């Protein structure tokens, strides 16, 4: 009984601290990428008219050099498959391993059920 009340009190403590942390993240921490100084229509007309001498982070370089170096109109797909393609290989193998693992676990039950159905 006391264990349940202790766990509820601990979760409320974590929730209070988390709400304070989220309010701090909203008001004090600056934006990760401020893209209002990039004119998108001019970049589409002339894909090599960018200037990356003083970048504002990685996202600045990716948005500016995307049309010239990959010719892909979907920037998120270019980031997933070209700029960060190695992570996608790892995720592909996670999918393979998870489905193979679920098949190995449930295979015995399915085969026993089919034999019982045939009798």
């Amino acid at each position, binding site marked *: 009984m006391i264990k*349940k009340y202790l*766990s*509820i009190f601990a*979760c409320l403590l*974590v*929730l209070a601290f*988390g*709400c304070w*942390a*989220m*309010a701090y*993240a*909203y008001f004090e921490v600056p*934006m*990760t*990428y*401020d*893209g*209002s*100084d*990039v004119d*998108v*229509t001019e*970049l*589409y007309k002339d894909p090599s008219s960018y200037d990356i001498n003083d970048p504002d982070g*990685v*996202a600045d370089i*990716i*948005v500016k050099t*995307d*049309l010239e170096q990959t010719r892909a*109109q*979907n*920037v*998120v797909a270019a*980031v*997933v498959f070209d700029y*960060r393609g190695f*992570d*996608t290989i790892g*995720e592909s193998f*996670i*999918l393979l*391993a*998870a*489905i193979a*693992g*679920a098949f190995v*676990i*449930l295979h015995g*039950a399915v085969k026993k059920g089919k034999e019982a159905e045939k009798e």
Partner: protein
Amino acid sequence: MMLANYLTAIILIVLGLFCVITKKDLIKIVLGLGITDYGINLFIVSLGFNEGGTSPQFAMSEIMHGAYFVDPVPQALTLTSIVIGACVDAMALAFVVMLYRHYGTTDSTKIRRLHG
């Protein structure tokens, strides 16, 4: 406006952890694991928002003259995280099905001894 997103994310994370710690039924524990994953994904996507920005596609039939993009990198990393959450849920539910066949119950206080 993003303050509502951040508060919802922390509420989902703590709710999921509370379900994993306190509940005794196996399926409820697996559901709590899933809810924690969704809260974390919502937080990561909400980090890269800019007021008044559009989605980062060069679709020239829809972009007007003064438009600017939001951050595309957190959106790409969240795609991977969603797939991993779905895979963890699939394997956990396969385990629950096999445990029910072996022990006949889904109460975690009764599945205590190591059968040979």
